[in-house]
């Protein structure tokens, strides 16, 4: 990983009329990482990457892509930035091989189209028209078009929306292989499992601002923490539980006690309860995941919009 970031975004603002789409977003993306941008629908994710790719002009703020400005150095940036757009199709009767070869002809230093199709597992569709492909095959063609120029930076927007689980997993391993080849990847997604599995670092964008920026694990731990649910052999009072290190919240429902907190919560609980002679049964422990964090970090504003998200 080199010292200079591949992409820096500073104080990016973008409005559409009176709607503020992006409000003071700052990001820095390292070379060779998979950088995820997550957030609710309409949070400003797509607008942010469209500004990075030069498709949209920011109202204010500055963007640098490998030291170049997407606005001023448009032509040079296009040579090494591959973009996979949300909801973009090919002419229905265009054949897969024709499309990839056409795009290869646009670039100075393109990959070999046949090898690329082979590595994406769509060589057998070389001669098939785009409209005859399934959703997963179309996505792979779309990825092929983003990669055929041999980009240093690939921007992939809503990559696996509408795909079945198997196709999603295949696309994921493909993205990992891209990173292994040294390509910097910006991945826009609203699937938490996708972000957790693929991304080295994440920015959570909500209402046009960066709500969190860290590794998926750190974001999950920070906002989610762990959760342990158990049935005690005899009632345990609140104070005893509160005294256990790491415990934040206690919830009781019927015979179950649910404790949320941080650190090695399950271990600390078991030891402390055993010491006072309480046995536990039906233990269910879960470490906080990104989805919990996502809901926690986005819910405050959501409830102010009149549609509160239940935890």
């Amino acid at each position, binding site marked *: 990983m080199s010292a200079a970031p591949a992409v820096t975004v500073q104080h990016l603002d973008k409005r559409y009329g009176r709607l503020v789409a992006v409000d003071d977003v700052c990001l820095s993306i390292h070379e060779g990482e998979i950088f995820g941008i997550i957030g609710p629908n309409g949070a400003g994710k797509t607008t942010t990457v469209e500004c990075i*790719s030069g498709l949209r002009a920011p109202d204010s703020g500055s963007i640098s892509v490998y030291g170049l400005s997407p606005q001023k150095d448009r*032509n040079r940036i296009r*040579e090494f930035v591959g973009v996979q757009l949300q909801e973009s*199709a*090919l002419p229905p*009767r265009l054949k897969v091989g024709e499309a990839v070869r056409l*795009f290869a*002809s646009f670039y100075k230093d393109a990959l070999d189209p046949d090898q690329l199709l082979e590595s994406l597992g769509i060589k057998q569709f070389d001669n098939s028209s785009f409209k005859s492909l399934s959703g997963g095959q179309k996505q792979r063609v779309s990825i092929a078009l983003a990669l055929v*120029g041999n980009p240093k930076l690939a921007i992939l927007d809503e990559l696996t929306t509408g795909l079945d689980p198997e196709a999603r997993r295949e696309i994921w391993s493909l993205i990992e292989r891209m990173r292994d080849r040294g390509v910097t990847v910006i991945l826009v997604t609203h699937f938490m499992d996708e972000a957790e599995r693929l991304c080295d670092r994440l920015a959570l964008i909500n209402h046009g601002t960066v709500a969190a920026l860290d590794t998926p694990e750190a974001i999950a731990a920070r906002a989610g923490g762990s959760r342990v649910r158990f049935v005690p052999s005899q009632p345990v009072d609140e104070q005893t539980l509160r005294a256990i290190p790491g415990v934040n919240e206690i919830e009781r429902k019927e015979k179950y006690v649910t404790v949320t907190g941080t650190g090695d919560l399950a271990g600390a609980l078991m030891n402390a309860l055993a010491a006072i002679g309480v046995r536990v049964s039906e233990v269910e422990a879960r470490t906080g995941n990104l989805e919990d964090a996502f809901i926690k970090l986005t819910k405050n504003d959501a409830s102010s919009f009149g549609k509160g998200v239940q935890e």
Partner: protein
Amino acid sequence: MSGSRLDESTSRRSRRQFAELLRVQGKLALREPYALLGGVALPAILLAVFGFIGQVQPGNVGTTRLTIIDLWTPTILVVSFILISVSLPNTLVRDREIGWLRRISTTPLHPSRLLAAQLVIDLILAAAAVLIVILEGALVFGASLHMQILPFAVSLLLSIAELFALGLVLVALVPTQTVASAAGGVVTFALMFLSGLWVNPAQVGDPLRTIMYYSPSGAAVRAVLDSAFNGGPSYAALLTMAVYTVIFGFVAIRYFRWE
């Protein structure tokens, strides 16, 4: 690397890109043959129909020494250009609507090159239609061929420029494929009527005759007809087409959207 070598390699690459685009757009034009069927096949069939009518009813039309096929050839050529130009929105509006033009604009290639490639393909189709109709008329039905080449060519080129520009106005203004095919239908019908395909402008009274003469398709037919048989084109018709080309070109450029 010196500047000139860089320029040279850039221009070579740009030619290679355009050649590849032409190849792909050409193949698509064969697979989605709106322009091919309407612009080339239909005129050839229309000419055959008028040719056979001419053989059943030979002789002069009115006081001219011209046969039915002579008189209809210009109209058929203009109909070909109309059908090719209204096929422009079929492909380009679709390409814009599905995000293909936007996708192209993320590559080093500007989407205007795709538009240019499409126009070149359509120009080739128009040229093919002219050749087929003239040769079919002359060889099969014995239509007159003693036109003056230069005025005839100028009339044809202006007709094509004016009607293609009108097609691009449609591409610029209509938002979706559905609207494009509806608008295309209306425009086709209006242009065909004004060209005199159903009613000959010489046989209707004013103001309809004036409207037809100074309409885009009517002026085109008049210019081609005059340059083919009356020794030279009507300058009024040529000027009319030039003005339409400028106006349509301006509107198309002013309102064109890539996404």
